[in-house]
């Protein structure tokens, strides 16, 4: 499945307005306004002005919170989103509820305490974002993330992403048996997405600090169902089959 653009003009629009530029503009704008977000549970809450509202929407970070406040717009950032803006892009500061600034190490510990799998999920999130994919939560589809080639208004989401750890089984292992794979592939097909597995190898680094992330390796694999009946006509387009 190649990218499925919504309508004829969408592809051209996306090419004219690359995600990398949108994110770069967002970066400048946030830095200039010294934006900071407040940690609240599993989210970070950020108040922005009108210009940044537009950039956040175009870059697909956060979810807008409807409030009656007229001069500011509030956004709710997920942990991966918040940490990406703070640690990778360095355009956002994050404070605790007592207004104390949190440095990257403190944030890392906070987020790990909330979600044990945060290091793996964050590596996967940042891996895709750095390549200019738009990454959103995949919990609606029973997966970790969904990835779009550009803004969801322009393109259908192509990939449903599951993040696995290399070599670790444990109770939290996913896709442990064939029926798990059948189930997930079937669901993905039903919502027109390809299952993308990102396998993260920590290379013995552990999860003590965010600098461990640099040594993690990511392997990408897609799993899709090959249908022999459909491929007879044109052998050149035979899909890869199940790896």
């Amino acid at each position: 499945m190649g990218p499925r653009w919504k309508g004829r003009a969408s592809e051209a629009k996306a090419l004219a307005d690359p995600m990398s530029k949108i994110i770069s503009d967002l970066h400048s704008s946030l830095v200039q306004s010294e934006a900071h977000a407040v940690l609240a549970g599993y989210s970070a809450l950020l108040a922005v002005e009108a210009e940044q509202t537009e950039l956040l929407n175009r870059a697909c970070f956060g979810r807008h919170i409807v409030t009656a406040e007229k001069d500011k717009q509030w956004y709710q950032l997920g942990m991966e989103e918040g940490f990406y803006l703070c640690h990778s892009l360095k355009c956002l500061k994050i404070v605790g509820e007592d207004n104390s600034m949190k440095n990257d190490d403190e944030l890392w510990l906070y987020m790990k305490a909330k979600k044990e799998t945060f290091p793996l999920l964050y590596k996967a999130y940042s891996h895709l974002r750095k390549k200019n994919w738009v990454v959103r939560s995949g919990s609606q589809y029973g997966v970790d993330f969904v990835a779009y080639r550009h803004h969801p208004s322009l393109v259908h989401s192509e990939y449903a992403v599951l993040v696995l750890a290399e070599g670790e089984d444990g109770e939290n292992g996913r896709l442990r048996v064939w029926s798990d794979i059948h189930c997930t592939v079937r669901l993905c097909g039903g919502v027109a997405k390809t299952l993308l597995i990102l396998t993260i190898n920590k290379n013995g680094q552990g999860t003590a600090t965010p600098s461990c992330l640099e040594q993690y390796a990511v392997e990408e694999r897609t799993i899709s169902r090959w249908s022999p009946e459909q491929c007879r006509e044109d052998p050149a387009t035979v899909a890869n089959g199940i790896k």
Partner: protein
Amino acid sequence: MEENDCDSWEKASDNEDSYVDEIDEEDYYMSGFISKLQFRKDISKAHWNNELGMAEVVEKKGKMWTTTGIVRNGKTYCSIEETLFLAEIGALYLLDNNDLCLPLKEIYEKIANEKSGCSWELFEVYRHLKSLGYIVGRHGVPWIVKIPKGRDINITSDPVSLQVTPKRHGVMDVEPKEESSLVALFYNIQINEVRPVFDVYLPNRKFKKSCPGDPSFLLYLTCKYV
């Protein structure tokens, strides 16, 4: 079963596609929905009380007070989630000790510090259900309490009367047996240690705090992120 039915598998993906992506897009157009908020002329006022972790209502405007806030000897108090919900939609001014209106940012910070019996996630649940018209109260907290005459209790220094009481209020009649089998059922999804957080009633224009009836649902929140 449809093991070899590739045709229907393909068809399903075509049909469901546009429906599913609508849900994806919903989030992105929320900024256009600000107009959904009612523009209010009459805004209620409440004073935040740090000791209680609640807001004491000093001026009531609008009809929402029949389903919001608990009453203790005639005075109405709001939990942090009720307070934030009303402040977010512009129906309430929350005042500090100097009668200055607290900005939304400070109310968000109060929820974030989790010192008033609520968390951000719990607030999201509360807000979602309230926006749909459900009536939501903290489990085990009676809507109305009158302290009988002759008992010398100062409401504001007796937080127990306002917080969750260990004994269940008479309006609710959940058998202990039922509850423990429910707990056993959910053991493997790690919901075994939670207690109910909210009582949820179906939308009801005739709801009365003096006689609320049984809640339609008990809401439990799981905390484990699997």
